C-alpha cells in the first residue's frame, strides 16, 4: 500500500484530556484508607487477604497487558497498533502496584509475623492441627526457598523486571511519536524477545510466592500458567472496554472498525478456552491421581459455599463466555462486547478469590465462607488498588498522542480488513 493514509484529527492531537483522573485518585485513596482502617477494626487477617486479592487481581491484569504489548512487538503485528498505546498507558500502574504490595510484606514479615503467609512465623499454628510451622518437616524441606529474605528479593526482582520492561516499551513508543525513527520499533522487538520469557518466569514465581505459598503444603506445576491465563482474560476485557470507551467519546471515530473488535474478541475466546484448559488439567490430574497430599486443596474448595463458587467458575467463567463468544455479533457489536468484557472482569475476581482465600482457615481447619459481611473489604480493597491503577493510566493517557502515529504498521492497522467482511 503506497498511498499515505490521512490520520483523523483526534488521533494526531497531542493527547486528549482525561478529566476523571482526579476522581479515580480519590476513589483509590478512599478505598485504600478504608481498607487500612478495616485492618484495625475488623478481622486483620481477612482484611489483609482482601488486600492481597485486590493487589493480585490488578497486578495479574497489568502484567498480562505488558505481555500483550511484548507479544504484539515480537509478532510484528499490525492490527494491535490500535490498542497498544492504551496498554502502554496502563503499564504506568506497575510501580504503584509495587508500592501497594509492600504493606503486605511489612505486615506478614515484621508487624504481625505470619499473619498472611503462615510460614513467615515459625510459631504459626497449622490450621486444624496442634503443630506449628517450626515443627513441620514439610516447612524445613522448603525453607531454602520460603524465607523472608529470599521472598523479599524475589518480590523486588519480579517488579524490577516488569517495571523495567514497561519503562523500555513506553519510552521507545513515545519517542517514536516525536522522531518516527524505526530503531525504536527494532529495540522494542529485541526487548520483547528477552522480556517475554523473563516476565513469564516472573508471573509464574510471583503466583507461587504470593498465592500458592499461602498453603505451602500443596503443590501444582501448572499453577503459574493459570494466573497468566486469567490475567490475560482480564487484560483483553479491559482492552475491549477501552476501545469502546474511546469510540463513544469520539476519539476513535473513523479509526476503530469492526475487524479490530473481531480480532480482540477472538483473543478473548482463545483465552477463555486456554484458561479452561489449564484449570481442567490441574483439577483432572489431581482428581485422577487421588493423592491426599494434593486433593486436600480441592476438598477445602468443596466445603460450604466454596463448592458453588467453584461451580460458578466452571459455568459462568468458562461455559457461558465460551458459548457467548462463539458468535461473531457478540464480538463486534458494542453493547454485546461490552457486556461480556464486564462479565469476565467480575468472574476474574471470583477466580482469584477461589484460588487464594480458602487457604485461610478457622481453628477447626475449615475455610471461612466466601459470602459474609467481611466481603465488604474485598470491595474497598479492589476500589483502592483499582482507583490508583486507573489514575495512573489516565495521568499517562493525557501526556501522549492517542495512537502511535508513526508506528510503521499504523497505515496497515487503520485499513485493517479480514478475509471475511461483515
Amino acid at each position, binding site marked *: 500500500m503506497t498511498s499515505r493514509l490521512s490520520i483523523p484529527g483526534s488521533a494526531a492531537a497531542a493527547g486528549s484530556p482525561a478529566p476523571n483522573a482526579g476522581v479515580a485518585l480519590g476513589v483509590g485513596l478512599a478505598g485504600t484508607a478504608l481498607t487500612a482502617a478495616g485492618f484495625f477494626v475488623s478481622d486483620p487477617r481477612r482484611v489483609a487477604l482482601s488486600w492481597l486479592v485486590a493487589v493480585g487481581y490488578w497486578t495479574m491484569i497489568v502484567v498480562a497487558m505488558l505481555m500483550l504489548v511484548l507479544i504484539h512487538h515480537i509478532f510484528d503485528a499490525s492490527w494491535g497498533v490500535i490498542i497498544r498505546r492504551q496498554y502502554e498507558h496502563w503499564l504506568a500502574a506497575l510501580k504503584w502496584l509495587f508500592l501497594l504490595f509492600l504493606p503486605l510484606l511489612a505486615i506478614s514479615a515484621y508487624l504481625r509475623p505470619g499473619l498472611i503467609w503462615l510460614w513467615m512465623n515459625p510459631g504459626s499454628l497449622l490450621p486444624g492441627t496442634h503443630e506449628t510451622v517450626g515443627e513441620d518437616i514439610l516447612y524445613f524441606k522448603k525453607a531454602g526457598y520460603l524465607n523472608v529474605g529470599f521472598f523479599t528479593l524475589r518480590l523486588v526482582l519480579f517488579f524490577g523486571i516488569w517495571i523495567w520492561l514497561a519503562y523500555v516499551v513506553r519510552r521507545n513508543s513515545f519517542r517514536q511519536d516525536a522522531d518516527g525513527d524505526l530503531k525504536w520499533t527494532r529495540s522494542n522487538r529485541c526487548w520483547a524477545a528477552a522480556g517475554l520469557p523473563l516476565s513469564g518466569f516472573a508471573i509464574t514465581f510471583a503466583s507461587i510466592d504470593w498465592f500458592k505459598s499461602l498453603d505451602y503444603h500443596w503443590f501444582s506445576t501448572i499453577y503459574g500458567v493459570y494466573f497468566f491465563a486469567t490475567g490475560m482474560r482480564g487484560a483483553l476485557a479491559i482492552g475491549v472496554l477501552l476501545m469502546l470507551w474511546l469510540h463513544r467519546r469520539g476519539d476513535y471515530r473513523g479509526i476503530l472498525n469492526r475487524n479490530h473488535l473481531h480480532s480482540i474478541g477472538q483473543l478473548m475466546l482463545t483465552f477463555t478456552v486456554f484458561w479452561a484448559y489449564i484449570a*481442567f488439567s490441574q*483439577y*483432572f490430574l489431581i482428581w*485422577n491421581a*487421588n493423592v491426599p497430599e494434593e486433593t486436600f486443596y480441592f476438598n477445602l474448595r468443596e466445603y460450604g459455599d466454596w463448592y458453588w463458587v467453584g461451580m460458578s467458575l466452571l459455568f459462568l467463567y468458562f461455559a457461558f463466555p465460551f458459548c457467548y463468544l*462463539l458468535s461473531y455479533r457478540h464480538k463486534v457489536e458494542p453493547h454485546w462486547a461490552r457486556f461480556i468484557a464486564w462479565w469476565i472482569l467480575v468472574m476474574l475476581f471470583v477466580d482469584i478469590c477461589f484460588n487464594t482465600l480458602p487457604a485461610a482457615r478457622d481453628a477447626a481447619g475449615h475455610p471461612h465462607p466466601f459470602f459474609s459481611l467481611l466481603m465488604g473489604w474485598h470491595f474497598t480493597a479492589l476500589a483502592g488498588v483499582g482507583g490508583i491503577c486507573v489514575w495512573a493510566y489516565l495521568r499517562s493517557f493525557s501526556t501522549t498522542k492517542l495512537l502511535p502515529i508513526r508506528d510503521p504498521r499504523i497505515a496497515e492497522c487503520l485499513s485493517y*480488513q479480514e478475509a*471475511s*467482511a*461483515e
Partner: protein
Amino acid sequence: MSEKSYGLIAMFDTPADIMQAAEAVRDAGYKSWDVITPFPIHGMDRAMGVRRSLVPRISLAGGIIGFVTGMGLIWWSGAWNFKLVVGGKPLFSPLFAFPISYELTILFTAFATILGMFLLNRLPMHYHAVMKQAHFQRAMDDRFFVVIEARDPRYDRAATEALLARLGGREIEELED
C-alpha cells in the same frame, strides 16, 4: 449456438475498476453473479454484498456432534456395554470423558468446516463455463472478471451487456454452459 447460455463475462483492468463494477452490479440487484480476481481484494465482500458464510454454523454442528460422540463413546463402553471399574473411579464421569470429547470436538469441527466449505462451494468442480473465455488465463495474473449468470431473474442479454459495457468492461462475451 445450440447450447444454453451460462451468462455474460466482462474483463476489467484494475482492482479499483472491479470494485466499482462490483458495487454497481450489486446495486443493480443481481444475485447470481461472481467476481474473479488473481488475488484477494480487501473489501470485495462488502462491495459484492456477500453475506457472512454459513460455514461457521456447520462447524458448530460438527463440534456439538463431536462432543456428544466423545461423551457417548466413553459412557457406552465403560458404563453400559462392558462395565469395568478402573482405578477406583466411577463407571462414568464426565471428567475422564472430557479429554476424548474435547479432542473429538476439535476433530469433528475441522471435518465439518472442510466439508461445509467444499459443499457450499460445490467442490470439486472439474469444469466451469468461464474457462472458455479467451483471456481467462489472465485472471491468474493481472486481469479481473465479472460473471453474471443467465439464471439470475434480472438477467437480460441486452440490458446486462449494456450495464457491463457502461461500467468499463472489455471483451464482453456470452458463455455457453
